[in-house]
């Protein structure tokens, strides 16, 4: 019975064509109320040459039940958190509470127009304000903007703030000399891309054999004198806490730069340590990681940017403030903070400007605040503890069978490699694919780039010991298979509706949309 629970079973799974292949002229899936005003001839309203002339050809014509079946069937082809452990390192795939979904759908929020007069949207603004307060307390950084729509967007915002600060501090001439952003070789690709968007050129810092930032190299690069800042992930993408973080910040600060921290890994720190206390100047958070807003198959996210008091003037506008109060940001906000008068504050001449229309991904803010409030302060810390404990448990469970390239105990995620398995020709990709047959979503693979054949495993706090044991058992079983029957692993997955797709061919001659078959090709 034990293995019955650890491996998947095969079961029937429906096929479903593209909706365009199912379309039948004349079918409809909608009904609108009849037009209740006098209808004017279209020609009286709009010039002919402004009107569509393709009759929307190609847009599907299907019934409501067609649409339901279409998506329900397709959905069964996905794996999801609700079906099991989803240990994608760096992605923090934790449980997405149903309650938070309900909160986001309360009509008083879901139906509210963003350009509503602030006086008529006090509840919505209170949510933003309260969340800002909570995030300031959690990060130890008092300046918060919730405008960025995802982590990378938050990075761009943060880096632009660094740039604006330096431009203001050093003046045109001085700042023109500071155009270098230091980024460790282990960093996520969004870091250099975001730095580039702000006009910085990127220099890469090496990691030590311990998996930490190489202080010598950092000092060397800082000595050049062109450093605007450093973008550091902490815990870093190997799951290790940069224990020299204070020293690192000192070096960068002494060289006239600022320290940006990529907060994607905050799930290891919430309630336990605060970036603001470490000397970091600005960070982004991923509410869609640490604060459990659902990933939705690729978004939406929300990437708040949090900074020191010194950098606050540069945050995007509008800022959401409470009028006439000087309440320190660290002070806790209560669940029902409405008495005060919340307003939009545009009056920040040094601001980098707007990074998105309206206020950002508001629905995600509702969910994140609900997460913070249902956990409570002790619950937040306990979640962090459980996340780290679970990663540690996996680290221990897998060391006998997989190469663990760094010795330091990991925080919320742990990296292994395929070094031992490659001897039999089995690589990380194969192990990942084989994991599917065991009922798990694979871990993050080949990231960070500095670890050859990396397997980055982040269990999060949302799994119990039973599931952790099953995962460890599955991985160890794959390790055995890699020795005893490498073909089995090389050809995995064996249980999915399709096999590995030819991605190279797909990229060579990309087909990025459906097109109607030309008459001649079509079946009679």
């Amino acid at each position, binding site marked *: 019975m034990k293995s019955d629970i650890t491996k998947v079973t095969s079961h029937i799974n429906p096929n479903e064509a593209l909706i365009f292949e199912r379309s039948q002229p004349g079918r409809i899936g909608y009904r609108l109320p009849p037009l209740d005003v006098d209808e004017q001839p279209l020609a009286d309203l709009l010039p002919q*040459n402004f*009107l569509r002339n393709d009759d929307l050809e190609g847009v599907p014509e299907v019934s409501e039940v067609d649409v339901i079946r*279409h998506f329900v069937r397709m959905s069964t082809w996905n794996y999801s958190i609700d079906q099991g452990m989803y240990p994608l390192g760096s992605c923090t795939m934790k449980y997405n509470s149903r309650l938070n979904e309900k909160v986001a759908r309360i009509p008083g929020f879901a139906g509210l127009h963003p350009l509503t007069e602030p006086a008529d949207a006090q509840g919505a603004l209170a949510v933003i304000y309260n969340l800002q307060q909570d995030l300031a307390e959690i990060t130890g950084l008092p300046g918060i903007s919730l405008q960025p729509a995802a982590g990378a967007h938050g990075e761009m915002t943060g880096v632009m703030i660094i740039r604006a600060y330096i431009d203001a501090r050093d003046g045109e001439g001085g700042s023109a000399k500071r155009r270098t952003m230091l980024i460790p070789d282990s960093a996520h690709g969004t870091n250099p891309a975001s730095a580039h968007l702000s006009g910085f050129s990127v220099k890469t810092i090496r990691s030590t054999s311990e998996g930490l930032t190489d202080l010598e190299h950092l000092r060397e690069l800082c000595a050049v004198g062109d450093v605007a800042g450093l973008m550091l992930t902490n815990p870093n993408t190997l799951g290790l806490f940069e224990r020299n973080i204070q020293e690192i910040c000192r070096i960068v600060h002494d060289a006239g730069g600022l320290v940006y921290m990529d907060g994607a890994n905050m799930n290891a720190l919430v309630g336990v340590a605060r970036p603001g206390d470490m000397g970091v100047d600005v960070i982004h958070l991923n509410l869609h990681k640490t604060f459990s807003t659902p*990933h939705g198959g*690729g*978004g*939406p996210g929300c990437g708040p940017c949090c900074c020191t008091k010194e950098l606050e003037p540069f945050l995007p506008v509008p800022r959401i403030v409470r009028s006439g109060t000087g309440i320190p940001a660290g002070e806790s906000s209560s669940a029902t903070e409405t008495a005060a008068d919340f307003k939009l504050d545009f009056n920040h001449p040094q601001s980098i400007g707007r990074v998105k229309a309206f206020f950002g991904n508001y629905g995600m803010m509702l969910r994140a605040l*609900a997460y913070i409030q*249902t956990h409570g302060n002790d619950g937040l810390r306990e979640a962090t503890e459980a996340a780290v404990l679970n990663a540690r448990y996996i680290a221990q469970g897998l060391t006998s069978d997989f190469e663990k390239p760094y010795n330091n105990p990991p925080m919320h995620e742990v990296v292994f490699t395929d070094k031992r398995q490659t001897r039999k020709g089995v690589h990380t990709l194969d192990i990942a694919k084989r994991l599917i047959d065991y009922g798990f979503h694979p871990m993050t693979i080949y990231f960070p780039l500095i670890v050859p054949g990396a397997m980055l495993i982040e269990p999060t706090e949302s799994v119990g010991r039973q599931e952790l044991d099953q995962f460890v058992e599955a991985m160890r079983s794959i390790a055995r298979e890699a020795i005893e029957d490498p073909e089995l692993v090389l050809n995995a997955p064996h249980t999915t509706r399709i096999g590995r797709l030819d991605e190279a061919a797909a990229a060579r001659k990309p087909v990025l949309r459906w097109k109607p078959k030309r008459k001649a090709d079509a079946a009679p």
Partner: protein
Amino acid sequence: MLHQLGLNSAAELFDSIPTDLRLSRDLNTTAALSEIELLAGFEKLAAGNKAAQRTSFLGAGAYQHYIPTIVDHIISRSEFFTAYTPYQPEISQGTLQAIFEFQTLVCQLTGMEVANASMYDGSTALAEAVLMAERVTKRSKVVACGAIHPEYLDVITTYVQHAGIELVHAPVDAQTGQASDPTLLLDNKTAALVVQSPNFFGCIEDVAALADKAHSVGALLIVAVTEAISLGLLKSPGACGADIAVAEGQSFGVPLSFGGPYVGLFATREKYARQIPGRLVGEAFDKDGRRGFVLTLATREQHIRREKATSNICTNEGLIALAATVYLETMGRRGLQEVAAQCAQKSAYAARRIAELAGFSIPLTAPRFNEFVVRAPLAAKELLSCLASDGNITGGLPLSRYFPDRPNEFLVCVTEMNSRAQIDSLVEGLTQATK
């Protein structure tokens, strides 16, 4: 478990963090709330949003349209909303096929050849389009013409500030409300001409003419659409000659939700496919010839290209793109046409009625879709606040929010959700408020 790891306390898990960096106190956030308490708290806050349940004529970049019930049911399926970006195609075909359909629908509606898997929203999509035009043309001047949504302009300004791009504005024609002729601003340094249509004042631009002008200097034409429902009725950007079309997809089945999450549509010509920012899904086959879909052309992206990527975007708006896909497939060809036609008809009716009111006028003469500017005999902000408190109607957007020099004007938006009775009470309310 702690024991098994040789640890004595949870605190030891954090031994790699220097002691002086560890928080020695509880976070100063609330204690844990039960579901009952939490819901009560948020319901109370929601009740503080007095405008949420009002009859509304507010548009200006976010629109109140009917959302078929099935949209929320489908996007609430665990398999969709609790999945990650489809990195493992064998167990992500649901998401991948849906995005492929999304890309196709965006192409069909915009009249373009390729579309990506979504951008954060319309405003950032437009900013990314500007950056892409610079990459494609290797030119550095961008001309934004006519009434572009002020918040979109702000976002572009932020995005281009360190990209060595010069942003130039072509004014609005005061009479028509359309863009005035940008010819004098266009030159062989111009990467792109940017236009929004229908524009911020609800006026439809002569996009085809602008395309010719842009192309004549070798620049790209970028068309932005904030009211995507207009695509059901108006000639598509592609048919007008656009090189990049972006849109805010909120009108396609996405709740207003105080401004987000929404979804940016981004489409262009096939020849620029490798310059597109963001994710792309393409067709692929397994070794038995079974069709599937994968993330493709990844070499454009940050996780491979790093600072040389076409964009820094990673997480996008997957679930909202799915909502838009469900919306578009449910409404279908005929539904999109009907909803667009109803918007145009109802808006025209409202404009006719308001134009008849003493003291009011509809100052701009260009053809409109479902929004129009009204000039009132008194300050619009006060007028609208009267209307809200006396008639429980949100009558539109006072233009003074963005244009202090237009104190008496406001922007009215009418959709299929506004019944004739609602329009009539708006008219009645305006009459009363100016008596």
